[in-house]
């Protein structure tokens, strides 16, 4: 009897000790010291440190702080000289001449030379093979040590957007994947794979003076899922998190400021135009009438996303064709009428394959399934792993419909619209339209801005009218930033600019 009580008491004591030490550990973390480290939550891991490897949007948005091209993107959706001091484009848009910035250095302190620029462009082209937009370059010459002349095989006024390609140090060739040095406002301190990437302010940054007193340390913390990341935000383990939902920002307190932007994503239900029922344009249009964009927007983004009817980014007004917006309204009766005309009055089966790691895509698919049921289409949702999605849906094009978002990887519209060009390796939807292909060729060849605008507008019109897919919205992006920091600025391309972040006064 005595023995038992002793054991029980001992156990209770040990557990309370454990619990106490837990409290001790916790309170250390929550102290109110001055913050000089900005912790940014990323709900995935960094795929690569080498900026020339084709990577995902999240990785690009972080590498933006470490590497720069001859030019770099601005928050307004244009480009501004970076490694180059200034540049000139010939009238026919074939010759681009760059003057190297005076005194610019890599993170290891070595000066950037024209040879480094040449090396970097060639390296990127070699790594990305046939798909590289830099293949348009016919010659790179170095007339004097501060000048680089890039000649294209034919005129292309959009080419400047491709020159955001990162400039790396030639002497560092062997270590580009493991210890690359860039010219950006931050240098790499430590990458702990699966845990975090630590960055430090680069004191020799060329624009340091103008930027002023920006944050000196940044930790990019990799978190397994968006849900976990949100919980960490609640617990103040991270200072900022992107891609929050409308529900989630409602649950945040006053110690976070919310920055509203859009994700720069063409979010929609992309369809396989070669799947038998979807070969008929009337069926594709019926889908467009049957999907209630407003409901999806309300459910997932609190109604704050700009809705779209074509593959376009409404915030980039330079290229967006706003006339496409009235093409479809939510009209189930019209959808059923069109289905009847096409001979599908009893509906058909439609499997929506969706990558399960993206909650928003899964939820969208679930909502669409319900909406399609109302016009007699028997949709089902098939969740797959991201890798399976890449190989079966994207590469294999073996699918009927899928919900996904295409991010804006380049500011050059040619890269957006090549996705529907009938012979393109990116034509995931199997869309094939002669008029579209012709207009695309013309648009790319044109060097007159107004003409280009008209032609890209026409492409958007065709995509909308033909119902190439069901384009839904450019999702609203809610970014929560701790009140300890100011200056978070959204970019239209994949970029999180840490050099604009300052500790709050």
């Amino acid at each position, binding site marked *: 009897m005595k023995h038992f009580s002793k054991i029980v008491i001992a156990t209770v004591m040990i557990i309370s000790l454990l619990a106490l*030490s837990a409290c001790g550990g*916790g309170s250390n973390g929550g102290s109110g010291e001055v913050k000089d480290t900005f912790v940014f939550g990323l709900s995935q891991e960094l*795929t690569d440190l080498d900026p020339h490897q084709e990577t995902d949007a999240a990785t690009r948005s972080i590498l933006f702080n470490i590497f720069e091209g001859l030019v770099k993107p601005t928050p307004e959706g244009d480009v501004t000289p970076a490694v180059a001091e200034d540049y000139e484009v010939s009238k026919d848009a074939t010759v681009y001449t760059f003057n190297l910035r005076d005194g610019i250095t890599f993170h290891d302190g070595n000066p950037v030379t024209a040879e480094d620029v040449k090396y970097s462009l060639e390296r990127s082209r070699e790594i*990305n093979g046939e798909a590289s937009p830099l293949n348009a370059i016919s010659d790179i010459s170095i007339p004097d040590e501060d000048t680089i002349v890039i000649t294209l095989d034919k005129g292309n006024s959009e080419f400047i957007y491709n020159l955001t390609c990162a400039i790396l140090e030639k002497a560092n060739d062997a270590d580009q994947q493991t210890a690359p040095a860039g010219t950006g406002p931050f240098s790499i301190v430590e990458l702990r794979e699966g845990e975090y990437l630590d960055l430090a302010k680069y004191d020799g940054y060329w624009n340091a003076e103008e930027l002023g007193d920006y944050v000196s340390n940044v930790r990019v913390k990799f978190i397994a899922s968006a849900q976990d990341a949100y*919980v960490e935000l609640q*617990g103040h*383990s991270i200072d900022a998190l992107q891609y929050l939902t409308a529900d989630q920002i409602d649950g945040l307190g006053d110690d976070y400021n919310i920055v509203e932007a859009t994700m720069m994503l063409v979010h929609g239900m992309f369809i396989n135009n070669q799947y038998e029922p979807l070969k008929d344009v009337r069926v594709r249009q019926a889908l467009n009438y049957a999907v209630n964009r407003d409901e999806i927007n309300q459910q997932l983004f609190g109604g704050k996303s700009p809705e779209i009817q074509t593959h376009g980014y409404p915030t980039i007004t330079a290229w967006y064709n706003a006339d496409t917006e009235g093409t479809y309204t939510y009209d189930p009766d019209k959808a059923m009428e069109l289905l009847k005309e096409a001979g599908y009055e009893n509906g058909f089966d439609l499997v929506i394959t969706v990558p399960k790691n993206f909650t928003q895509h899964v939820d969208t698919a679930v909502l669409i399934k319900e909406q399609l049921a109302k016009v007699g289409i028997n949709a089902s949702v098939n969740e797959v792993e991201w890798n399976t999605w*890449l190989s079966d849906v994207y590469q294999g094009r073996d699918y009927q419909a899928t919900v996904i978002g295409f991010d804006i990887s380049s500011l050059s519209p040619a890269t957006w619209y090549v996705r529907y060009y009938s012979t393109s390796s990116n034509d995931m939807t199997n869309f094939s339209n002669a008029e579209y292909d012709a207009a695309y060729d013309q648009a790319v060849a044109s060097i007159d801005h107004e003409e280009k605008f008209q032609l890209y507008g026409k492409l958007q019109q065709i995509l909308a009218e033909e119902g190439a897919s069901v384009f839904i919205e450019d999702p609203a992006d809610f970014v929560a930033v701790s009140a300890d920091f100011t200056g978070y600025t959204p970019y239209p391309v994949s970029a999180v600019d840490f050099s604009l972040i300052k500790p709050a006064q």
Partner: protein
Amino acid sequence: MKYVLKKFITLLITLFVISILTFTAFSVIPGDAALSKLGIDASPEAIAELQQQYGLDKPILERYVDWAIHALQGDFGQSFNYTRMTVSELLSTRLPVTVILAAMSLLIIVLVSVPLGMLSAKFSGRWPDVLINQTTQVTMAIPSFFLGIILTVIFGIGLKWFQVGGYVSPDKDLLGCISYLIFPAIAVAIPKIAMVVKFVRNSVLSEINKDYVRTAYSKGNDENQVLYGHVLRNAMIPVITFVAMVVAEILTGSLVIEQVFNIPGMGRLLITSISNRDFPVVQASVLYITAVVVVINFIVDIIYQIADPRIRTS
């Protein structure tokens, strides 16, 4: 000695079979590492080149033999996904985390459940037994990740006893790491505690009702003496087996709880690596986890033999 050798050979065979199973499974499931690495707009050439670099273009048998030859020399290769690290480096940072977590859970389980189980058996049918029984019935029914969510909300966000996601790696701050892992360990332990308490209680009770115990009592032995001298020893045999099975479950349980508390242990590594098709990492982690479980079973066998000579004779 012969016995140990035999067990060692068994371990090798087990690992061999598992490596083949994992390998085959990986060749059947769609997608590969090159795809997930290069993402959506990769050119076919870039993918082909990376596949070649990873050796994914070779015939399956050749790939397995290649892998096995290197693995036998202790070289598990380079991770496809974490390009800057070898698999061994990667595992050596992740394995300790999971081991610490599992060890802490096990410690909590044993410290709490053995005394409670015996207490319950001793007072069989009376109020302490009923109370323990009813509490364990309920706690057994709570999924550990649900418990994890609840603990996070109450102690992390509400009471701020620990910083959610404030994990530090053991090589930087061992104590900090342990104190962060306490709540995850509790979340893993609580449902298992209930099971072990139940098992200990039943085991002790069924032992108490056996003839030799009655004989011991009838000979006028003291109650505690009988309980510790005979019952405990015999009752612990099935308990040890059960706890060994629980260890395997704790390892699996840790895999899930690591997701809830964002702990970079083996579980998260395994799950990310599977979805990235990072074959060298998956293969090595599976083998490690398997080896640990097999070795535990082996130790249990030995304890079993010492405790119960009947096994040896049969």
